[in-house]
């Protein structure tokens, strides 16, 4: 078999072949672009994905419904909470669960935080690829503000596994309101700085205006969604088109572009971040203060276990730090009461026979969550488009098939068309503006 790629076979003998990636500073380590060049001009391009393939979909078929959640963290690793959300909501649709209002609001908060950090990462990389290193660091700084808020509540920055089937894992930490307000304020200031540096910068406009442009028809036929599609002028946003959570009660606009070029993708993302910050403020105002936990002595787990041997223990039990926020008293606001789809309260597992049994049953193979037979598709608006899960269940404790609709897969499919006829220097910013995330595209 001929080991050469399609492009290598078809290239004219006179042209220069340049292999960009996967070991290339701007390829995010996970993509290879083979270029056929006439000096600086690109005659043909061939994109190759698959360098971060970990078999996500196949792995999921071997994990229980509850356990596979952690694999969704690793899809779009810039906004893991939205992946969590997509999977959890697909399962809720399959199981027919209603999620408590408070959990829904927290989910909105987390999705919008993730969306802003996703856009920040994308634009930061895009600016850096255009040579504006200062913008990159400004935006990374803003992302730190947001990730601090996420970390405060979810306990992790990337591998959050925070949004669970039926609700969320833990309540917001005390002081979240001030932390969130400070993060929003800080991010706004950074966005203003970046706008000042780039919006009307003639070098930046020269490098992005008209580059990587795509028509609406082409964008639709490639299956584009998210900011990339909106940059062409089509106002399709899953949050508006098929509202989920409480998005139908919140006021926000869907910014659109006009030409579908790199500048529009930049500008759409910038304006979307502004909308997301608006959503964060609205949602934060809707979340009621958490009721304080009952006063009284706090027992250490071993004390509670010892006490429960004689009589039913009363009072609170100190949970391990990674369960903080998911105390039994908080569960009604965070987890659906309909079916046992979340981890049963740890306090019960410590102190009652029934609690211990239900805890074991939840985690034992073949027990746990058992959705009915059938298939279901549900999608949420992710950082770079429609994140959809198509799940087929055969009624067992693990999926028969799980498919992820990764938004950047469709975007990157158009890359060859976008860069053909352009210069080498246009490859990287165009690629950056599509926001390719290796973890999501290779599944």
């Amino acid at each position: 078999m001929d080991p050469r790629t399609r492009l290598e076979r078809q290239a004219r003998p006179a042209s220069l072949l340049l292999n960009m990636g996967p070991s290339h500073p701007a390829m995010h380590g996970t993509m290879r672009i083979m270029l056929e060049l006439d000096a600086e001009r690109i005659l043909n391009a061939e994109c190759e994905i698959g360098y971060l393939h970990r078999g996500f979909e196949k792995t999921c078929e071997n994990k229980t419904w509850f356990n596979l959640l952690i694999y969704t963290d690793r899809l779009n690793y810039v906004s893991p909470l939205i992946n969590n959300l997509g999977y959890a909501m697909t399962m809720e649709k399959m199981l027919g669960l209603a999620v408590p209002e408070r959990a829904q609001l927290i989910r909105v908060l987390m999705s919008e935080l993730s969306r802003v950090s996703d856009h920040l990462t994308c634009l930061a990389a895009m600016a850096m690829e255009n040579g504006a290193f200062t913008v990159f660091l400004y935006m990374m700084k803003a992302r730190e503000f947001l990730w601090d808020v996420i970390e405060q509540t979810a306990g992790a920055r990337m591998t959050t596994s925070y949004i669970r089937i039926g609700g969320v894992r833990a309540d917001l930490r005390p002081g979240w309101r001030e932390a969130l307000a400070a993060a929003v304020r800080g991010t706004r200031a950074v966005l203003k700085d970046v706008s000042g540096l780039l919006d009307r910068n003639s070098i930046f406009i020269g490098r992005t205006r008209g580059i990587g442009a795509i028509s609406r028809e082409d964008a639709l036929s490639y299956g584009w969604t998210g900011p990339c599609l909106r940059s062409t002028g089509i106002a399709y946003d899953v949050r508006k088109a098929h509202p989920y959570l409480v998005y139908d009660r919140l006021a926000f606009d869907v910014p659109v572009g006009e030409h579908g070029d790199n500048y529009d993708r930049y500008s759409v993302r910038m304006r979307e971040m502004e909308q997301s910050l608006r959503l964060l403020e609205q949602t934060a105002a809707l979340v009621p203060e958490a009721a304080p936990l009952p006063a009284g002595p706090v027992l250490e787990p071993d004390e509670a276990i010892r006490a429960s041997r004689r009589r039913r223990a009363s009072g609170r039990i100190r949970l391990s730090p990674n369960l903080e926020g998911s105390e039994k008293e908080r569960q009604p606001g965070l987890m659906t009461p309909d079916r046992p789809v979340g981890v049963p309260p740890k306090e019960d597992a410590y102190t009652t026979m029934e609690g211990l049994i239900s805890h074991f049953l939840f985690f034992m193979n073949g027990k746990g969550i058992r959705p009915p037979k059938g298939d279901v598709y549900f999608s949420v608006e992710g950082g770079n488009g429609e994140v959809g899960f198509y799940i087929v269940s055969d009624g067992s404790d693990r999926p028969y098939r799980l498919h992820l609709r990764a938004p950047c897969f469709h975007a990157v499919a158009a890359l060859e068309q976008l860069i053909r006829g352009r210069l080498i220097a246009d490859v990287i910013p165009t690629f950056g503006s599509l926001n390719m995330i290796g973890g999501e595209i290779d599944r």
Partner: protein
Amino acid sequence: MAADVLIVLAKAVLAMTWTLLLALFLTWVERKESAVMQDRIGANRASIFGLRLFGLFQPFADAIKMFFKEDFVPSFARKPLHWLAPAVSFFCVSVTMIAVPFGDAIRLFGRRIPLQVADLDAAVLFVLAMLGLGVYGILTGGWASANRFGLIGSLRGAAQLISYEVALGLSLVGLIMVFPSLRLSRIVEYQGGLLFGVLPKWGIFLQPLGFAVFFLAGLAETKRVPFDLPEGESEIIGFYTEYSGLKFGLFMFTDFLEVIVFAALAATLFFGGWQVPWLGDGGFVFPWGGRIAAAPWAVTVLRVLSFNLKVLFFCWLQILVRWTYPRLRYDQVMDLGWKVLVPAGAFNILATGLVLAVR
């Protein structure tokens, strides 16, 4: 005779030391200035016996690191050329500093010693020629490493430097018409007068358009953002893709030397070189009346200081530009060079000629 040779040697060593030390210092300035701009702290860990001095020792740490890194030469590289390229780059840039006057002249042991290594007849041409020769370093570097990224980088570099050489040359023609000499020392002396009795007669006031063209073309000559196409670290990694260790360090160092050379040229040609406004040989004479007498040694010190401050200012300005703007694209750089700067330079010559003819 022997004394003359010794003096020239001493001056050459001093000039070289000054340039190299300033380049080292600039690496620190670049780190710190970018850090301040980007809300970071910047390198501050290098220390000698616990003395950190805001990371001032970082350049030495970098230099030591560069020395001890593996000097990797790809097996398919053309080794002699691969070896030669950074040396050529480094030599061509550093040698230009001999033509730059650091100050007026000092009197020592009954001799008048100009603070300039060599007062060349055609110093302006010499500097331009040497900067032009620097292209060979880039070209051989990219070619000899037999890497396609390196090759593209070196071709970009050659095209860019040669194009901007034209604009740079044109921008200086107007200046040479005003100050009728190619000697840098004479050009500086001409700038000692006053314009309208108030303004110092600096090149920037006589040739504003010329300076604009010179500044942009000079930025492009230094190959830094927004003109860092030969490097283009996020696209093609650059003409030194296959360089490591001290050879890579030499290329990097050349970059900083170019910054200094360009700053020194800008100061010398357009900002009066070592001239201090209103400072004559006897002391300050202000246009609004009033004078401050100064001893000859004080005048010399002030003048050398003035030159150094101007050079530092332009280095600072270049670093500021470097960390503010995005990078241009190849065709845009060529358009700017040939369609904007070259016509502007030509127009400047015409305008200067008209003004000189009418006056």
